[in-house]
């Protein structure tokens, strides 16, 4: 008797769960407003990338054109495929001792795999991700970028 009852409860449970699934997909079918696909070239003007999107590696600059990179080179050491070159310079500091500052932070976008190890390992959080993703260029040399903006300096107290 018990197994007899189980046979029918199985059928009803099965039908119920199937109908639940069908109602979910059916609801999606009849609500075209929920479509998540971005139709890229058409919506290029209005496209908003997400904050966490890893477009390219950039150096974060504040409004005074100042960054927090002290040229330590940890990003260069951590980069698995050598797409970062840190060229440091020495300038006399306030106390007279020579001080290491960044001259050029060179980033080879063409070699970057966007693994994010440089951003993760930067001790002063100088690096971040940009939202730009249209990187196609006609000349490979244009993929080599200098991340610190011209004329920028280091924020006081970060070194």
């Amino acid at each position: 008797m018990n197994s007899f009852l189980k046979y029918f409860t199985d059928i009803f449970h099965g039908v119920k769960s199937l109908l639940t699934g069908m109602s979910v997909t059916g609801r999606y079918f009849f609500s075209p407003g929920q479509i998540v696909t971005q139709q890229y070239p058409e919506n290029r003007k209005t496209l908003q990338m997400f904050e966490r999107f890893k477009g390219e590696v950039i150096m974060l600059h504040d409004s005074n054109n100042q960054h927090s990179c002290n040229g330590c080179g940890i990003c260069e050491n951590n980069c698995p495929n050598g797409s970062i070159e840190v060229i440091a310079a020495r300038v006399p500091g306030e106390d007279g001792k020579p001080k290491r500052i960044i001259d050029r932070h060179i980033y080879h976008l063409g070699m970057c795999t966007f693994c994010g190890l440089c951003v993760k390992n930067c001790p002063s959080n100088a690096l971040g991700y940009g939202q730009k993703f249209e990187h196609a260029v006609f000349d490979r040399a244009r993929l080599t970028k200098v991340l610190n903006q011209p004329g920028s300096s280091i924020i006081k107290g970060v070194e």
Partner: protein
Amino acid sequence: MTFNIYDFTSFNQWIDKGLNSIMSPTWALVTEWVIIGVVFLLFYAVVGLFLVYAERKVCAFMQNRVGPNRVGPYGIFQTIADFIKLLMKELVYIKDSDKLLFNIAPFIVIIASFMALSAVPFAKGLHAIDFDIGILYVIAVSSLGVVGILLAGWSSNNKYSLIGAIRSGAQIVSYELSVGLSLLTIIVLAGTMQFSEIVEMQRNGWFIFKGHIPAVIAFVIFLIASTAETNRGPFDLAEAESELTAGFHTEYSGIKFAFFFLAEYMNMFLVASIAATVFWGGWMPFHISGWEGFNHIMDYIPPFVWYVGKTGFIIWLMMLFKWTFPRLRIDQLLTLEWKYLLPINLVNILVMAFLVLMHWHF
């Protein structure tokens, strides 16, 4: 010429008379056969291509996507482009394959679905052959397709093809029973197997309403079993992409692959039109006995529109099944048939017979 979208009989007679007046009866008959053949071929290709497009669009909407939208407005020429691509592809010769069977298999599959399509009543008078055993003919002919699938798997000299074909054979042999028995339930109610008479008997109410509970159960069982018979998801273990690459048509390329693909979609169309004809009245408008005014308004909608609407709805339901449910394992598949559908179906026939004897149907 008397062309009437509500009744094609006079149109057919006009063609028949016209042909007979210009040539001998034998040649008139041959010409009619050729005309019907060409019309069906065109219909087959157009509906097949449209269904592939519809499936992709429906599946996309169910997954919150857009679907094909690049070739033509809303992507309507996508399947035509795909078809042209398939036509131009190389027909790869498979080493150590059985050449004759390998080449003949797609034709068996497509001829089976083509033959079954000829018995479907599309509208009043739009009916290629009206056998008095129409349902039996459709069941017999449509199950020929499995021979083609088995041959395709066997002759490909590929283990995946063979496993897929054997699964398909086991599946179709078992689910054929449920399809037959659920149609038998309606035959008990209708008392005939002729499609034109079955449609005519639903003039004062479709069978799904006339036969109420057993008819609804039979319809649900027919829908499940026929989805399995057309090898569509969730019963698509014959081609189970994740396990068997593509199952029985792994080794096929170009137009021969397109034949299998087209036949799958046309089988779905065929099954949906059988379900629409037997359970939902085919081209018969929605009538409620006694409500003369309402029935008269419904009669203004052409029969072909009714037929397409019902068939389209059932095709949509089958697509909903495919894109909602996960694939069954082979033992689950056979359990569903032999332990659930078949016993329920047998009891259902008894209930229907009792209902007809007691005149408890409408």
